[in-house]
């Protein structure tokens, strides 16, 4: 009986410490290096499966795929050419306005380690880590749009906090009207949550949401999702809506890591919620202010205090 109590107290202490973040977080990152072989082993069957399937495809199938991809490439190249002229024009206009130049985006391809992690936590493991130049804070995108951000790295893996994690928030702007809002994760992999939309705000069903770049963690202009039907929230003073994520957030594919965008360190002391309390009131407060002014807390990788990660970023900066 005593042993049971001792173990229960120990487990509770672990949970509370892990939840609060701090030194246990660091210890955990260290320990995760030790369990990497297990991840690798667990991902093996699907790797072998993909390999076998690739071996088994017939010539005709390959030819068909080839043709389809070539057509797709043609369409995209044509679109790209048009984008380039638009970008050049944009650059000129920017020059006329005298605003800061926006750097080109540099990306790195990484594949997702195909394993199922805890289903209550919206995380992904990437098959590339700090040895491959992955850094904490990098934005992760796919062809559709923003997926999330890197929250921890080990030498050969990196864990990604998805947009859909309830601890995640991303500042967005409505593409049509430019209204700035905050999109939260819902804990479900197929939906995001748009909360605290002022009743008078020009937001409609079907609006595209793009990252606004406020807060400095994510670069502006990446698709986040499409607004679903709006409904009044519990307080009846604001509207809320579900958002269909633009990126495909399921497993088993490749993702792109943004490089060359230097995340601006988030201002820490302007909001009492930044240190990562999930309290409902805290979130609402942050969102209310976000509609009118830049948010300081871009994302809240909850158990992960932002300071150490920034330290790591600045320390690796000279390498780039």
């Amino acid at each position, binding site marked *: 009986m005593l042993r*049971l109590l001792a*173990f*229960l107290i120990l487990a509770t202490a672990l949970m509370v410490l*892990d939840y609060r973040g701090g030194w246990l977080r660091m210890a955990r990152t260290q320990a995760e290096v*030790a369990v990497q072989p297990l991840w690798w082993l667990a991902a093996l069957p699907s790797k072998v499966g993909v390999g076998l399937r690739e071996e088994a495809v017939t010539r005709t199938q390959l030819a068909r795929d080839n043709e389809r991809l070539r057509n797709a490439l043609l369409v995209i190249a044509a679109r790209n050419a048009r984008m380039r002229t638009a970008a050049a024009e944009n650059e000129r206009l920017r020059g006329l306005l005298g605003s800061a130049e926006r750097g080109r985006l540099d990306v790195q391809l990484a594949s997702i380690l195909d394993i*199922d992690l805890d289903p209550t936590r919206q995380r992904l493991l990437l098959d590339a880590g700090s040895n491959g130049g992955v850094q904490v804070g990098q934005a992760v995108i796919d062809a559709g749009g923003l997926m999330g951000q890197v929250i921890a790295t080990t030498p050969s893996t990196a864990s990604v906090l998805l947009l859909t994690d309830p601890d995640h928030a991303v500042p967005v702007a409505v593409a049509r009207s430019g209204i700035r809002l905050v999109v939260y994760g819902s804990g479900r992999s197929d939906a995001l949550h748009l909360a605290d939309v002022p009743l008078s705000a020009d937001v409609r069903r079907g609006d595209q949401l793009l990252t606004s770049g406020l807060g400095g963690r994510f670069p502006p202009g990446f698709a986040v999702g499409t607004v679903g039907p709006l409904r009044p929230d519990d307080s009846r003073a604001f509207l809320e809506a579900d958002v269909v994520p633009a990126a495909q957030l399921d497993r*088993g594919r490749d993702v792109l890591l943004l490089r060359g965008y230097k995340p601006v360190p988030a201002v820490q002391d302007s909001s009492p919620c930044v240190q990562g309390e999930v309290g409902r009131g805290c979130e609402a407060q942050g969102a209310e202010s976000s509609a009118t002014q830049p948010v300081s807390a871009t994302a809240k990788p909850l158990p992960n205090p932002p300071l150490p990660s920034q330290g790591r970023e600045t320390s690796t900066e000279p390498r780039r």
Partner: protein
Amino acid sequence: MSRARNGWVLPVSLVVALLLGLVPLPGMLQPVRPYWLALVLAYWLLEEHEQVGLGVAFTLGVLADLVFGGLLGEQAMRLVVMAFILDRFRARMRFFPLSQQALVIGVLLFNDRVISAAIHVVMGAPQLPWRYWLAPLLGMALWAPLHFVLDALRLRRRG
């Protein structure tokens, strides 16, 4: 239990149980993934009482939390509770027929889901969809075959 034991079966089966928890399943099957770790641990708690106790359950739980990327300590708590209950009823359960044992295991797995849900409530984590509550049923169905396989491996004569 004085027969020649295959000592490697215990660690290997636990590692395999961990791996089975990680192996990607299609989205439809994901919710009903049985809690392999609890099943295998339950087997060893019943059969190798001297080697496997609360300490092993706790260590295994912490390891599982690390591997699955969950809240550190959650599975440790769940497995310790299960180990304690099994330990209490071990003497009786060992003489149950397999079908009755499976029933008890099903109840324990269900209890495990309740504990997990309670932890999520306290920690403010999101609850799992209702389909995850079906997993104990599958775990119950798997008890007999698992028992059979592990028995065969453990008691097999060497050579």
